[in-house]
């Protein structure tokens, strides 16, 4: 194989001959590049003696053509095999020039401004979604909402008894861990009996609701985002819109109501299972008799703590359902978007639950609960 060339009167004459398979002669390539940097008006490439070739030759010729194109140098090809010429033409065909404006680096201030506008728009969209959901609830109360009972019942089934096994397991384990960690410290003072009080207060006041919130955000919130997001991908949401059916009535309302209604009950169940977990450690490891554990638990149980926990559950239900449905409805139109929507739904639900916990705790401090 050889790549020979000479320059006469602003014309570069290049001859390719022999076999060009796995051609990778850097020295010849750079010499050719150097030749191309001369002031040229015409390039002729002759391939009469060319035998076998592969992409390593095509790439050299493609680079020459690109340079010629850029410098407006005329190129003449002679005795080229049909396939090679066609391949080069195909590579040189420009279907549509990319929109350069999309790649222009914007100044920092402009990007900051766009970020601000993005946050403002997203906040508006989120608030509008919350408003639409509560308007749908209003329409439901007036008997005007287009919600299928069967969708509500399915959603209710999904976040009630179907969630019980995982809720029971996690809450039991949390109660168990709380009791175990507490017992290690309380034993030092011979006060291990107060494990019952510790578990009861912690579970009923906040831990039960928080654990249920995290479980339901990962389980149900993600499922809401994925289901509605897939409907968006499959154009089902478009079909609803063009039929004039409000998506909040049809898709959000049954899911929102189901979760908001079940969360307080799931919280109560989690409180109970946590106390059972704490009791298991107390009875098996701390030699506390069951009657004593129950007596201390009942004494520690405060209605205010219990109601604060239930209220947390109710608020978390709203947060999880709204986040799941919001990201589902605003999902993009490809499979990747469904994954992104699901992740965002779970993460934002957890973040907002923490924010709401802070606000509720602050409010409880102010009103002295």
């Amino acid at each position, binding site marked *: 194989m050889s790549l020979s060339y000479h320059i006469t009167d602003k014309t570069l004459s290049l001859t390719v001959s022999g076999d060009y398979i796995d051609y990778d002669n850097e020295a010849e390539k750079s010499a050719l590049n150097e030749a191309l940097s001369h002031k040229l008006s015409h390039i002729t490439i002759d391939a009469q003696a060319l035998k076998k070739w592969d992409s390593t030759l095509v790439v050299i010729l493609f680079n020459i053509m690109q340079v010629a194109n850029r410098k407006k140098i005329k190129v003449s090809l002679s005795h080229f095999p049909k396939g090679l010429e066609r391949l080069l033409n195909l590579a040189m065909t420009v279907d*549509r020039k990319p929109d350069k404006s999309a790649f222009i680096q914007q100044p920092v201030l402009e990007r900051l401004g766009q970020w601000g506008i993005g946050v403002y728009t997203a906040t508006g969209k989120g608030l509008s979604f919350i408003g639409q959901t509560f308007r749908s609830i209003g329409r439901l109360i007036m008997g005007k909402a287009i919600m299928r009972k069967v969708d509500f019942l*399915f959603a209710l089934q999904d976040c009630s008894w179907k969630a019980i096994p995982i809720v029971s397991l996690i809450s039991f384990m949390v109660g168990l861990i709380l009791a175990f960690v507490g017992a290690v410290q309380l034993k030092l003072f011979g006060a291990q009996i107060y494990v019952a009080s510790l578990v009861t207060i912690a579970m009923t006041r906040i831990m039960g609701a928080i654990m249920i919130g995290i479980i339901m955000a990962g389980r149900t919130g993600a499922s809401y985002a994925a289901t509605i997001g897939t409907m968006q991908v499959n154009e*089902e949401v478009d*079909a609803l819109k063009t*039929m*004039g059916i409000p998506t909040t009535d049809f898709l959000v309302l049954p899911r929102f109501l189901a979760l908001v209604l079940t969360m307080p009950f799931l919280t109560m169940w989690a409180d109970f299972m946590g106390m059972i977990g704490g009791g298991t450690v107390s009875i098996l490891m701390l030699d506390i008799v069951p009657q004593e554990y129950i007596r201390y638990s009942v004494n520690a149980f405060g209605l205010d703590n219990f109601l604060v926990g239930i209220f947390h559950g109710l608020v978390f239900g709203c947060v999880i359902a709204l986040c799941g449905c919001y990201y589902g409805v605003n999902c993009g139109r490809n499979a990747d978007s469904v994954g992104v929507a699901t992740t965002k739904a779970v993460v934002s639900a957890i973040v907002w639950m923490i924010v709401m916990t802070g606000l509720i705790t602050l409010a409880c401090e102010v009103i002295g609960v």
Partner: protein
Amino acid sequence: MTKTPIITAKNLSVGYDDFLLMKNISFEINKGDIFIIMGGSGCGKSSLLKVMTGLVPAKGGHVYIEGKNFTNATVSEQNEIMKKCGILYQSGALFSSMTLAENIALPLQQYTHYSAQTIRELVSLKLALVGLKGFEDFYPAEISGGMKKRAGLARALALDPEIVYFDEPSAGLDPVSSKLLDDLILDINQSLGTTIVIVTHELSSIFAIGNNSIFLDGATKSIGARGNPKDLLKNPPSEVVKQFLTRGESK
């Protein structure tokens, strides 16, 4: 016989954010036409359809349906106008959690006060019209792609619309199913007088059923040709149109 326009687009611009797909295009669709919106991939056909059905706001200009300004209408006014329109989406867009009967019954329950029995009978009729008699209790996952499109068409026809929009009806169908769907569209057009608007780049369908069309030219962001597709094939107004209508074989 003079034809009456049922849809009119005036100086319509279509796009997303800062990206414009079509600029200031105007066209008319006559009552009873099978109107084809054709063009290469990515030229903005489906986006134009979304603007015409109110799913995406127009970047400029107006769409009039039966003389009423659709682009400037409020959501409730648009819903009122859309009662006269049915849409068949590319994937059929059937609600996967509902049976075919429930899918078709949904717009009837939403917009009519028919009894449950009448709705059941209407659903059976619509399914029979598209050749799916007896499939009432099937779920979308239990039927083939072609059947899903037919069921989607039955739902689009539920309210006896005056206009039916189709987004790439042949996409994903084998040639036989595609031909059957074309025949069905022709039957509906001829028997019910329904105006059909089809977004497609399927040449066999374009020539088989289209009697009026526009060709969207993505490069110039404008209408590259308009008229009966068969006439356009005989006398293409430009090389781009010729290439498109001959699958690039005249090159």
